[in-house]
């Protein structure tokens, strides 16, 4: 049976507003999902949500981690006319923010839509047309008449600004677009894996929805400290190279990605061989990424304590760190299946063989 993506659940998870250090709402949503599966949840000191299953079984402790935080901005200042200057949270290219809708969320959870303003396009001299605006110069247009109107809405310096949520299934229904697939697709995959493993008995499994990955893999440190796993997989997204503007070996629809390297970690050979064998045994489509320009939670997991056997599994994504990314349902399905098979197969003997490689 081919499992379909639960579009309503994916929409709910991806559309929730939660930039780094503002993960309370998405954390609560995910905790509710795990409660519905009767899985206990604990939090680490920064707010990561860690669900656990089969913790009283024998076997190596396996942690799967996906970060809950999305990239966004913080309100830095409100000028005299009610225009808002912002601080980036996570990396952004200014080219991709001008003219886009954003949502400001106030302390008391009110949401306001604002447009990232841009200079008039008519009569631009050629040198200006050929450059991108500095990210320091972008501003949000609330569509209000004065600074006081902005303040009356309850907007304050420090408020969260996130891309306006717009979930859309594309013209081939396997292609889905929304904000924050990096890394809410990882959170979604872990819930679906937990659901499919509901009746299974397996090695102790910890599903960590980490905070603050984007500014520096911080929740990964605290989560791994809380769990102290023997083996860990980070689930994140990786750049697809199947568009007219980007070429690499990674494509939408070609399966779950075994990330061989990122900017902070290398997948250990023994673990790669083992994951490849599980994919082959269970006919799970997989592909590879060599991407040393960006980090994942593995960067801080693998070198914790005396070292953790750890690698990243990824979902190929187009337009990462923009308001609308695109992923492919088949890659998501392959990743869910792989997590389930890894959890079911893992035991002391298998773990020993990975260490001995």
């Amino acid at each position, binding site marked *: 049976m081919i499992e379909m993506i639960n579009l309503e659940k994916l929409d709910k998870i991806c559309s929730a507003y939660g930039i780094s250090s503002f993960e309370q709402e998405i954390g609560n949503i995910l905790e509710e999902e795990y409660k519905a599966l009767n899985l206990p949840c604990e939090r680490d000191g920064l707010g990561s949500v860690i669900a656990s299953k089969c913790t009283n079984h024998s076997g190596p402790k396996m942690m799967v981690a996906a970060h809950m935080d999305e990239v966004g901005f913080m309100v830095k200042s409100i000028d005299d006319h009610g225009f808002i200057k912002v601080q980036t949270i996570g990396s952004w290219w200014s080219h991709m923010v001008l003219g886009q809708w954003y949502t400001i969320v106030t302390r008391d959870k009110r949401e306001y839509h604002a447009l990232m303003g841009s200079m008039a396009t008519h009569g631009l001299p050629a040198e200006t047309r050929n450059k991108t605006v500095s990210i320091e110069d972008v501003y949000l247009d609330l569509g209000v008449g004065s600074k006081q109107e902005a303040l009356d809405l309850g907007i304050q310096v420090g408020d969260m600004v996130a891309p306006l949520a717009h979930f859309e299934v594309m013209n081939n229904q396997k292609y889905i677009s929304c904000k924050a697939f990096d890394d809410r697709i990882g959170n979604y995959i872990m819930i679906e894996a937990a659901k499919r493993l509901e009746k299974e008995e397996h090695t102790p499994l910890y599903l960590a929805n980490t905070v603050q990955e984007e500014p520096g893999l911080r929740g990964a440190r605290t989560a791994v400290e809380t769990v102290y796993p023997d083996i860990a997989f980070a689930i994140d997204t990786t750049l697809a190279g199947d568009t007219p503007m980007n070429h*690499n*070996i990674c494509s939408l629809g070609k399966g779950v990605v*075994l990330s*061989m*390297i990122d900017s*902070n*970690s*290398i*997948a*250990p*050979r*023994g673990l*790669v*061989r083992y994951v*490849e064998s599980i994919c082959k045994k269970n006919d799970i489509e997989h592909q*590879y*990424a*060599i991407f*040393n320009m960006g980090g994942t939670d593995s960067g801080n997991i*693998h*070198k*914790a*304590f*005396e*070292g*953790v*056997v750890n690698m990243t599994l990824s979902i190929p994504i187009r337009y990462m760190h923009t308001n609308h990314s695109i992923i492919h349902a088949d890659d998501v399905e392959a990743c869910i299946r792989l997590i389930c098979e890894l959890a079911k197969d893992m035991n002391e003997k298998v773990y020993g063989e990975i*260490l001995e*490689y």
Partner: protein
Amino acid sequence: MDTKRLEKLCNSFGVSSAEHMIGRTLQKDYEPLCDEIKCDRLGSVFAFKRSKNETAQTLMIASALDEVGLMVSEVKDNGTLAFIQLESVSPSSLLHQRVRILTRENTYVDGVITTGKKALEDKCEIKSADDLVIECGLKYDEMKELLHPGDLVAYGNNFNENNGIIMSKALFPRVFNEVTLELMEKIKDKEFDFHIAAGCIGQSVIGYRGTKTATYVIKPDAAIALTGFDTAQKKVHPGDGVVLGYYDRQMLPSQVFLKDFAKEVETKAYFGLTGNDGSFIHKTLKGTPAISVGIAVDNMGSANEICRAEDVDALVNALAAYLETINSKKLAEFGFGD
């Protein structure tokens, strides 16, 4: 210096994250020289010489285990391999170097780094690793089952020794692995009132990852990081004996430890930028007084490094002699008390 053993070490494959083969070789060599082998999960291997003193301090003497290397990023259909660099070696240093690729099946395929230009006709300017590919003399059909993205690549074996002058790939760190072995051999029958952990740190050169995990396992009270010091700009020269690091961008050495070592051992001072394992030993856990010590190495990080056997002997002898001048009390004084 044991030239034959150094040759064997240099001619092993030990690129970051695939150090298991050389790690096992070193472990076998360490076993008869110590009381216990200590490992972490990133490939580090240490020989632990236990003291009978119940309140013994621990001195860590660490070399790196991994050599610089590359990773295959794509098997192109024109039969070449695109790659990324694991460390920031100047890409122009790579052109026309011999390489050895480790396949998924743990076999080797040899290749040469090329830029698709004719050396006899064109200017071969290399601005980045994107200008380079690996050519193995194979066609795509012969390669596609054999080589894969993610395969690791080392420089090709090229060890040569002549009159005590050694030229090889990977002298940094292999000559320092050899130093740990010779040091442990020299002190095998001696007893100290402090523990000694001498060994090699996995995934060090790529970014001091094993440095954290090895420090977590060893829990040193003081540490000596063994490293090469590049001779460019004639700061030091092969034949200068023991070199002592006074500054690098990643660590300010423990002043107390540094001054003590400089007092007991004849050393040449070195002020540089490149870090070493000291960078993460000294600031992991609660903090460890650390210094960096080594010898001059030409062309560090390239496929052809140079050092002198007499410097290796000087370093081994200096370290063995220094160990006789210290004890747990002194090691504790390098730190700031509990």
